[in-house]
């Protein structure tokens, strides 16, 4: 992507700071908490997300109800297990979550947002080290908190994305950027 030089950015608190380079790993795991909401209601719980190249495996568990769902798949399609007695399928996770649970979960975009991979724009704000603080992309406003360095990457502690009336809030307790895992996430 054509990286916009910071001179064209309007004066913001970090105007003279060049955005820090972002390399998005292809194999990683995170564990933490996620909340999806549509303004009226919210589903939240523990999240384990494993990404192996194009294959993802997300397990969500609500501590209160003890309920657990598994959202897994890859380029050929994905499945949601645990919501209904039988797994339900769709071509994209976004479509599946929207259709079955009524939430918006932009898994595709999140994969990049999680690492601060964004198309810099006039509204992008950075911290003093050039890591993105806030950014808007395709109607979503994404805010970052608690950047920390690990395994040679800068990783956020919290990522909140909002696109009225929807929200996706992630608090990441542990990151793990490992080599490709031997067995790929099972395909649907």
């Amino acid at each position, binding site marked *: 992507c054509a990286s916009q030089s910071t001179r064209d950015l309007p004066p913001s608190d970090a105007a003279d700071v060049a955005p820090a380079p972002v390399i998005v790993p292809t194999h990683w795991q995170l564990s*933490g*908490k*996620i*909340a999806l*909401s549509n*303004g*009226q*209601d*919210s589903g*939240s719980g*523990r999240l384990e997300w494993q990404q192996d190249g194009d294959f993802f495996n997300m397990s969500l*568990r609500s*501590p*209160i*109800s*003890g*309920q*657990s*769902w*598994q959202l897994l798949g890859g380029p050929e399609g994905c499945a949601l*297990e*645990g*919501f*209904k*007695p039988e797994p339900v399928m769709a071509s994209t996770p976004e479509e599946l979550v929207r259709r079955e649970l009524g939430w918006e979960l932009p898994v595709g975009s999140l994969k990049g947002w999680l690492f601060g991979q964004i198309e810099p724009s006039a509204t992008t704000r950075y911290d003093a080290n050039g890591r993105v603080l806030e950014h808007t992309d395709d109607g979503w406003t994404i805010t970052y908190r608690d950047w920390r360095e690990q395994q040679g990457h800068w990783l956020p502690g*919290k990522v*909140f994305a909002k696109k009225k009336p929807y*929200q996706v*809030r*992630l*608090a990441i*307790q542990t990151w793990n950027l490992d080599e490709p895992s031997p067995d790929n996430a099972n395909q649907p």
Partner: protein
Amino acid sequence: GPARDRLEQFAKGLVTVRATFQQDSLDPKGQLIDSSTGKLALHAPRQFRWEYEAPFSQLIVADGLNVWIYDPDLEQVTVRAQSLEEAQSPLTVLTDLAQLDRDFVVGESNADGVPTLVLKAKAKDPAFKEVQIRFGESSPSEMLMVDLLGTETVWRFDGWERNPKIADAEFAFTPEDGIEIVGEPLRAPSATPLAD
């Protein structure tokens, strides 16, 4: 049955109660997925405070009208009408026997000699297959819930303290500013509307 008698004996004369809990989640093969600990406080008949302390903090407060689910890490609180919430989760069953019979089909079992209440939610498509509540001599020892995927969640209670003094504020929740509020809290019918 013996389990029902123990529940009624537990609920009799109970205004407030405290306890600690350990919550374990087991996968269908019985493997421990994770466990968390916390403490609970109940105020009969329908108020409760359920505080997860480790590994993640989370607070659930039912003030009798609304259930507030607050997550400090996500900086968000979700508020739902308590009546809706209750049909799905058995937390107030311990102190609100009317809710027990209204929302659940109640059976009994005596697995390995422990008097156990077996609850099946009457709700149309309940989030869980079954809830069991096992009783010790004078109080519930365990609550167990199995969801559609076969994940089992077990709460082990300990340190029951009957009728301790608990400030009303513990059964209320007011979000600090900056906290994202999801959902509309039900207003108490008797609350006078704010003058515009």
